[in-house]
């Protein structure tokens, strides 16, 4: 008995001296809270079986731009998982925390999962909304957050622009005119995606909510499938919420290896399955094929790189001061 207890003690002491506890901070944007809660558990199990170490991942969520600013101002994030590349670019350009080529370091633009922009309409779709062109009809009210304050909503804006550009005879001028008409049908510009969802769902304002596909599915799941329908437009944009380690911080914390593994594991079949569970589109072709039926069928999906020449350019042209969005509301 005593010998057994001593042996146990010895084992416990031995294992604790060998195995370490590592802490990571993942700074992310709002709608990924549940995704990373589940993923962190899965990664902890994986890491323990691989190295014997315990990894505790703390999460921080908020608006994508606000989160990036916190990291620039000194929040000690080991990894960032934000809503758009522009916000992670800021870590390189504003803070010098990561190298400028960060997006080339991981496969698929450093984006392990994607989403796209779809329409959420009220059950039955009484207003007959089927494509972007329907959104500029005078009897339709559109709910979407301000792309000035919401990183996620910038994808909505670009998706509308991309559709107009791909119409017969489409040009930058016709796209701007279309988007201007669309935003004239927007009665409330919320500051973030969750606020817009509340306006549409709880306040009963508007006929259609422009939303990320994963958020639309979540809204239908949580609020009841008998209240809303998801409508897939003919053309949309591939929303890429990228990920990166924060070099300066992981080197300081000595967590580079585990942080890198934390991000690459997102690309593994296990990581991809968790993303699917939270309605994000997987990158892995096998996983994507397995769950193809779970996502909206959108005939043409475009990337921000192909249509807009990347985020830096898109931001400068459309969302910076005097960009196209400011012109829409100009005098």
């Amino acid at each position, binding site marked *: 008995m005593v010998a057994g207890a001593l042996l146990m003690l010895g084992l416990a002491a031995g294992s604790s001296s060998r195995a370490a506890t590592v802490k990571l901070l993942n700074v992310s944007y709002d709608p990924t809270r549940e995704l990373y809660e589940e993923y962190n558990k899965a990664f902890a199990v994986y890491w323990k079986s691989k190295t014997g170490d315990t990894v505790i991942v703390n999460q921080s969520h908020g608006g994508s731009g606000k989160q990036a600013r916190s990291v620039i101002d000194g929040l000690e994030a080991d990894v960032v998982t934000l809503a758009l590349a522009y916000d992670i670019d800021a870590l390189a350009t504003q803070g010098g925390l990561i190298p400028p080529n960060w997006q080339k370091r991981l496969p698929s633009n450093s984006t392990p999962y994607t989403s796209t922009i779809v329409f959420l309409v009220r059950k039955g779709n009484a207003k007959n909304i089927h494509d972007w062109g329907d959104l500029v009809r005078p009897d339709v009210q559109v709910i979407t957050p301000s792309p000035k304050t919401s990183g996620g909503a910038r994808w909505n804006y670009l998706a509308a622009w991309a559709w107009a550009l791909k119409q017969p005879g489409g040009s930058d001028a016709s796209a701007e005119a279309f988007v201007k008409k669309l935003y004239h049908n927007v009665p409330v510009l919320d500051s973030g995606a969750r606020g817009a969802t509340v306006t549409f769902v709880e*306040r009963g*304002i508007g006929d259609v909510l422009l939303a990320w596909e994963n958020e639309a599915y979540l809204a239908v799941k949580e609020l009841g499938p008998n209240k809303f329908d998801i409508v897939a437009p003919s053309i949309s944009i591939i929303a890429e919420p990228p990920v990166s380690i924060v070099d300066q911080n992981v080197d300081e914390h000595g967590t580079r290896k585990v942080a890198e593994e934390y991000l690459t594991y997102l690309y593994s079949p296990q990581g991809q399955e968790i993303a699917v569970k939270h309605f994000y589109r997987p990158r892995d072709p096998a996983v994507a094929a397995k769950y193809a039926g779970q996502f909206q069928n959108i005939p043409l999906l475009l990337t921000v790189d192909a249509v807009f020449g990347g985020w830096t350019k898109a931001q400068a042209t459309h969302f910076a001061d005097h960009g196209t969005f400011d012109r829409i509301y100009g005098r």
Partner: protein
Amino acid sequence: MATTASVALKGRKPRVILPGFGLTLGYTMLYLSLLVLIPLCAVFIRSLSGGWGHFWEVVTAPRVLASLRLSFGASLIAALINVLFGLIVSWVLVRYTFPFKRFIDAMVDLPFALPTAVAGIALTALYAPNGWIGAWLAPMGIHVAFTPLGIVVALTFIGLPFVVRTLQPVLEELDKEVEQAAASLGASAVQAFCRVIFPALWPALLTGFALAFARAVGEYGSVIFIAGNMPMRSEIAPLLIVSKLEQYDYAGATAIAVVMLVLSFALMFGINALQNWASTRHGER
């Protein structure tokens, strides 16, 4: 001896009962510097990091001017409403006893305690076209949520306790006998209020007004939910600061902040001066 000592002291500093002027002043300066002056200096310096040209361009943009007009205008209206109704509330709470008085008294503080986002969401739920109050107002063509009117409602809500809590102690000190004396000297109720009570309350009312106004100008959390945030129409200045920050335009964001700061400070300074003038005039009577 006693007289010579007091004569000798006359030429020196005025006599203070408790010592420690130097220490407390030093502490005050340090405290104010750390908490107020240094952060504000940083704002000023940062606002000029893009150069004067950029500063001027930002603060004279039509959208910024519209938002400043809205922020200060709505705050002014809200503070005025609070002065009127805050006076009534504090009067009732001080002068009368009625059931649940303690409870109602405590309720006045709720806007202090509630996270402002919660207030914004609750007010929006009430005043939205499908809300309890909004559903009544909508058929009459009155839209509160998602209009500048909604902003005034939210700012009135958060400013209420400031007026009530500054008026209450003053009202409590104001003896009922003063009114009775006025009445016995032949003053009508209106005269008693205008010439006896109001002059005594006037400085406290101004303080309450200034506090409610200042609080409203800087308010963000509750307003963004009810405002609708339409450019040129229902977009408050703090929202523009946030949207500049979203573009990592620190210089632009702080430029708007500086304008708000200077305007607020000028207004507070003016109100303070008015108050000093009012209280000395009242004191001379």
